[in-house]
């Protein structure tokens, strides 16, 4: 049986080639846009810079994350995204190198919000941090996976596919230890399903990291945009 997904892909485990743009903004210290299909996030990084007195940490940089939705004001979902991204960054940024400073990252959704936005936001932020030259321990990459209503595992779902999902998993992997950095799972799933999602996400993240590498190589080579479509 030839499977046909709503956006024309023929395999449930097919990752759309992500689209990346490095340094689209001129004022920010570093910025990047990352998109899976039509879900896109623009991220900007300022720092290490002067820190607000009450946020000052004696032994490390303070990491601040702000996520803005495309429509309306930020609510609880955006707070959750901010918390998830901040926790990832806390473990990735070499923050002890910049005590008494702050590193601020801002993410803005460029398209309709679905769980996919979180993956895009994490990836865009990491690219923006690399663009800003902030020291990182490793490059983390994030993908989204769902278990659909017929218990099929679907990698990198579209917004329509997410709507009918039994469970949604946003996995973030490290490129050095290949271990999981963060995982946000919602819905009902079995241990076996979780295990298979884990393995699929792990290999998918490696290919996203290859895209990071390509993007950075293009920057160093003097060309600033990559369009992999």
């Amino acid at each position, binding site marked *: 049986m030839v499977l046909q997904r709503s956006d024309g892909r023929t395999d449930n485990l097919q990752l759309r080639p992500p689209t990346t743009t490095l340094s689209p903004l*001129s004022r920010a210290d570093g*910025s990047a846009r990352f998109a899976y299909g039509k879900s896109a996030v623009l991220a900007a990084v300022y720092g290490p*810079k*002067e820190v607000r007195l009450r946020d000052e940490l004696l032994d490390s940089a303070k990491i601040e994350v702000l996520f*803005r939705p*495309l429509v309306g004001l930020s609510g609880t979902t955006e707070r959750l995204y901010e918390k998830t991204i901040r926790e990832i960054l806390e473990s990735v940024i070499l923050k002890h190198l910049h005590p008494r400073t702050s590193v601020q990252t*801002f993410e*803005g959704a460029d398209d309709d919000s679905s769980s996919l936005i979180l993956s895009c936001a994490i990836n865009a932020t990491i690219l923006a941090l690399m663009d800003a030259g902030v020291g990182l321990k490793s490059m983390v990459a994030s993908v989204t996976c769902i278990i659909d209503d017929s218990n099929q595992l679907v990698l990198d779902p579209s917004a329509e596919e997410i709507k009918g999902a039994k469970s949604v998993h946003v996995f973030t992997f490290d490129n050095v230890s290949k271990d999981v950095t963060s995982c946000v799972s919602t819905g009902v799933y079995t241990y076996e399903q979780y295990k298979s999602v884990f393995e699929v996400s792990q290999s998918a993240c490696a290919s996203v990291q290859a895209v990071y590498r390509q993007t950075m190589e293009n920057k160093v080579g003097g060309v600033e945009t990559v369009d992999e479509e």
Partner: protein
Amino acid sequence: MSGEQFLSTSERTFVVNALREGIRVDGRGAYEFRGLSIELGGGGFGSAEVLLGKTRVLANVSAEVVRPTANSAEGFVLFNTSFSPMASPAFEAGRLTEEEVLVSRMLEKAVRRSRAIDTEGLCIVAGEKVWSIRVDIHVLDHEGNILDCACIAAISALLHFRRPDVTVEGDQVTIHPMDERNPIPLSIHHIPICISFGFFDKGERVVVDPTHLEEQVQDGDFIVVVNTHRELCTMSKAGGAGLDVARIVQCTEVAAAKAAEVTELIRGALTKSNEIKK
């Protein structure tokens, strides 16, 4: 917080002295706009990303059905501006800057109060159901003249926007999904375009579309909102150096010419995005 960086005296005198010799720091003529790029439909209907030089603004239009205030037969048009801290280190999350208030007020005056959008056409059932059109404006990069850029983004997004079709049969109101019936564009009477001027040397020298550097040095500003029919929609001269009346007339003439150019660009972008859809 570090906020905006202060400008050194030598930078200030450099900008002003150059202008006295008729040169702008970025090499433009006094009445020349920066390059304008309008990208429509990146995020579906009613989304516009406008680049004016390096200033970048994203506008997104959305619609919902709401109950109107007391027996009114008019829909709503709401503007929500957010100066994301992404755009400049001077913007802080949750803190309203004076500039942000000014921009959102001017947009409101330019687009809503000039009656550019037919709010009566947004009525579904009088006193019961009307469309509320929401325009979210995100300032992504601040390199000067946010207002003009935001105004172009807002009006382009409104022109590009389509709302779902609605049928009313007796008490029954049906909102048709976009794939069932062709969505409907808003009825827009005219296209107001905002043109900002910056003044130097106590009003002696004038430039159009000031950059961030010029904005920090200028003695005063003057904002004209005008459409292609050469109708003035809004004018604003909020403090700063006094201006000669003849100067104001001259600026308005320039603004009318610039508005026509900008409108052409918006129309071009709209035709282009319609062709892609087909």
